[in-house]
């Protein structure tokens, strides 16, 4: 889940506090923890510690604001069964475009209920290999697919298996605004350090 949110959080820092602030935070993350901002956001406690070094208790408001720009926190607090409402339009667009693409939709459908290695995904959804690999990689980069366990190949090598981060997705277009609601898989929700930061 954090994979999916990281780019939007980065954008949020830049929009609110400017590129120079973002650069300083990135510089400190690199020298203190040896990681970039996208990586650190996935390890939210380290990201939080660096924000506190800069802004003291102001880091709390900053983090809440980031999340507010991306997820509807009011809905999130009320929500049950791991449903989250995506407010960020860039993030919503990723979902919309992924489901508009027949190949990607087929890939997602294949790993919705079970995790598979890439070769099996391509075989099950009957997508050409070259474009199939490219599209699976796009879904991984965008955070819609995550690695979940391994399969052992005949030569004994470990091969990553992939699955979707969600069980269900609902999409609406309300007054030209794309509203995406996703029901996260239980483990996706629990493993997201960002979502665990949301106060109850």
């Amino acid at each position, binding site marked *: 889940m954090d994979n999916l949110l990281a780019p939007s959080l980065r954008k949020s820092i*830049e*929009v*609110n*506090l*400017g590129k*120079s*602030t973002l650069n*300083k935070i990135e510089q*400190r993350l690199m*020298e*203190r923890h040896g990681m970039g901002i996208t990586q650190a956001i996935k390890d939210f406690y380290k990201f939080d510690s660096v924000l*506190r*070094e*800069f*802004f*003291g*208790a*102001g*880091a*709390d*408001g*900053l983090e*809440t*604001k980031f999340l507010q720009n991306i997820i509807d926190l009011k809905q999130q607090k009320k929500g049950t069964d791991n449903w989250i409402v995506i407010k960020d339009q860039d993030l919503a667009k990723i979902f919309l475009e992924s489901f508009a693409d027949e190949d990607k939709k087929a890939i997602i459908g294949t790993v919705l209920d079970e995790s598979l290695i890439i070769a099996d995904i391509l075989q099950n959804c009957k997508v050409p290999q070259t474009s199939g690999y490219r599209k699976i990689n796009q879904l991984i980069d965008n955070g819609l697919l995550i690695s979940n366990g391994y399969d052992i190949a005949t030569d004994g090598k470990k091969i990553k298996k992939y699955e979707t981060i969600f069980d269900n997705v609902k999409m609406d277009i309300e007054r030209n605004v794309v509203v995406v609601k996703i029901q996260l898989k239980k483990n996706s929700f629990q493993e997201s350090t960002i979502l665990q930061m949301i106060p109850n």
Partner: protein
Amino acid sequence: MKLDVVPEKLGSPINYAVLLLIGAIVVIFHIVVNISEDSDALIYGFSMIIPATVSVFAFITARRYAGTLVYSRAYKMLGIAFLLMFSAELTYFVYEQILELEPYPSIADVFFFVFYPMVLLYLIINIRFFAPQITKIGIITIVGAPLVTTFVYLYLSLSDFGSFDFYYGVIFVAAASTTLGFSIHTARIFRGGLIGTAWLVLVIGIILDVVGDTWYYYIEINEGYTLENPVNLFWYSSYLLILYSLYKHKKSL
């Protein structure tokens, strides 16, 4: 060979030499204007240059963060606040030195007064982003600081109760001390952070401004303000400290 060690914690300590320099500038200036025979031009010049410098520096900082939703807007508000302060000083100068009219009360007071809401906007923009939920201590600070300061002023000027100067002074002292409450609250938010030092310096600057304002309106009730009055020391050092805090903030982020 000296190793370039990564610090455990980022720090931005106050440079006490700068504080000493600010203190020395205002004290030496005060002595000079009190021993020289025609010091009006010097005082007016100094009174206008400092807010103008703070305003220019705030606008430069706003430009550095151009397009951002928090810093760009906040620094523009601070720039406008000090531009108003400069306008107030200029108007005061025109009234007294060119038109030879009594500058208190005058249109200059409108500029002096609008300075406070603009500083408040600067603080509120920061608070809304970094700490939208105000704690109980925050509420006590925001409400308590203006109440205590205004009551101190009321107590000191009770002898003139009911006069124009009395009510006029209450309005200004209340406005100035409201900015104090908000700035203490904001400094508490950033305490311990890299930008916390900049905010601490800003609070000290605003405290000096509030002391200066309270004293000024007290003087206006009792004896009448003169350009050589030591109350100027508080305003000058306040603006120079605010300038230093802006520099520290800019350097930290």
